[in-house]
């Protein structure tokens, strides 16, 4: 049985007493090594979840546990060692004057000895494919490269969970692909859970499990395949479904009996080929 890493127990949150609830009675669990996508319309509470996990915000109701520890004013400094975050804007989170300074920043705050820091900088920059850029200044980097450095900075303090809050939203398609490939490699080599808050369907398809938020409530929680099978309902709450899911739907309407919800082109082609061969 895998360890429970994050647990939300009946969590509700609002910014002020007279304001509406941003999260309403949310309960879910995230396990070690799991990769989770959180999707939902703007204002559905996705980012609030991320901020509650590392104690940037505290709930008015309910309880949040990280690796068994409740998140409180007293525990946040320990918890933040376990929870790394990368945000949307690559320019707002670059604090160093060079790539290696930026990666060192988090470790300096934690008083990690110099020798170890040097080793970890090398290691984490290699993990994100930026090992040739130690002394490069941020303005010489592309958006995708900056985000990879941000990920390296988080990895250097070896967290248990990495949260990406729309970290690819401001990147071009090339930058997005870079980040996706980086994350796949990082997750393979490290014991790490991954939480991706995103609108990008490719990121959703690659996750183990999806949490769908709608107006502050958990609307659904299932595998990408199960989620995308509910395409009409998803569209009603303002979300997108992948092209293959839409095409598969039209094919079903026209009488082609597909056996499962395809997640990519290859799966749909395979099904069509099987149908064709048995015709």
């Amino acid at each position, binding site marked *: 049985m895998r360890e429970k890493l994050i647990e939300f127990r009946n969590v509700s949150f609002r910014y002020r007493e007279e304001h509406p609830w941003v999260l309403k009675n949310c309960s879910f669990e995230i396990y070690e090594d799991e990769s989770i996508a959180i999707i939902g319309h703007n204002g559905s509470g996705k980012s609030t979840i991320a901020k509650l996990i590392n104690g940037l915000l505290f709930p008015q109701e309910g309880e949040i546990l990280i690796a068994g520890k409740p998140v409180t004013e007293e525990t946040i400094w320990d918890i933040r060692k376990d929870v790394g975050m990368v945000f949307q804007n690559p320019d707002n989170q670059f604090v160093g004057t060079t790539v290696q300074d930026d990666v060192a920043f988090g470790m300096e705050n934690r008083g990690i000895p110099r020798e170890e820091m040097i080793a970890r900088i090398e290691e984490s920059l290699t993990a994100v494919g930026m090992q040739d850029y130690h002394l490069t200044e941020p303005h010489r980097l592309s958006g995708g490269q900056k985000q990879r450095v941000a990920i390296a900075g988080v990895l250097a303090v070896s967290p248990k969970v990495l949260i990406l809050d729309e970290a690819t939203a401001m990147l071009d398609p090339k930058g997005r692909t870079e980040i996706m490939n980086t994350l796949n490699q990082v997750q393979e080599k490290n014991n790490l859970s991954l939480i991706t808050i995103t609108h990008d369907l490719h990121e959703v398809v690659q996750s183990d499990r999806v949490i769908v938020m709608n107006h502050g409530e958990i609307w659904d929680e299932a595998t990408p395949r199960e989620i995308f099978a509910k395409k009409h309902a998803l569209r009603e709450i*303002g979300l997108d479904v992948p092209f*293959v899911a839409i*095409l598969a739907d*039209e094919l079903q309407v*026209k009488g082609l009996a597909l056996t499962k919800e395809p997640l990519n082109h290859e799966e749909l082609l395979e099904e069509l080929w099987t149908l064709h061969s048995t015709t």
Partner: protein
Amino acid sequence: MDITFNNVSYIYQENSPFAHKAIEDLNFHIPSGSFVAVIGHTGSGKSTLIQHLNGLAMPSRGEVTIGDFHLKAKEKPKNMRELRSKVGVVFQYPEHQLFEETVVKDIAFGPENFGVEKAVIEERIRDIIPAVGLSEDILERSPFDLSGGQMRRVAIAGVMAVQPEVLVLDEPTAGLDPRGQKEILQMFYELHKRQGLTTILVTHSMEDALKYADHVLIMNKGKKYMEGNPVEVFTQKDALHKVQLDVPESVAFLSKFEKRFKYSLPFKGQTVDEMAEDIRRVVQGGRIDE
């Protein structure tokens, strides 16, 4: 307004060791009323290109013609102000440019600067508010109390209130959720048709280009790489892959289908429904003779 680029080059910091050619020998013609998608990677020259459309950048070589306006190297036109009232630019994250106390003041700022009379501005605002999907009760609110999507609509209303004839959109849906993205693009498409605009959309989305544009311009390393109607351009998979651009998913799928079934099913701009019908026919057609 017709837009023509005639051998246009733009060089940043010319005659210095840092000289850098952002656009090189660019030639194209956009007839009035077109909806054009400009596509290319970061650094391909897209942004420099659109800066030429309202004189924020002047060509280092060659000439840009927009309607009756001419932009040439070292020749600043006297009627630049008029050009800028005819060419509206919605920059990336336009909500970052909001600054006034109330929504109505922010929207009025543009037309006021171009000397439009107060009564006319009020009339235009009444007209533009529903067109951008806002309601009148937000007019007296601070733009900073609105949601991100609403703030963007206010910024767009400010551009539209000047009543431009050319609308330049630099990734107008970046950062919005899927519904917001669809709504904003649909809104621009309707404004485009209703007001007979010439629209230039800078985008990374091949799907959006396919859906809305009647002409596509692909930029690569400061040069025009491809140009044509969307179906024509997007069916050239190899050429696009060569500059690391993807084709729309529908085109990619059909091409894989053709390979697997060894059956010619070219993309001709079919809807998903039509495509499903084509596929069904082939799949249920029994064995295909090779």
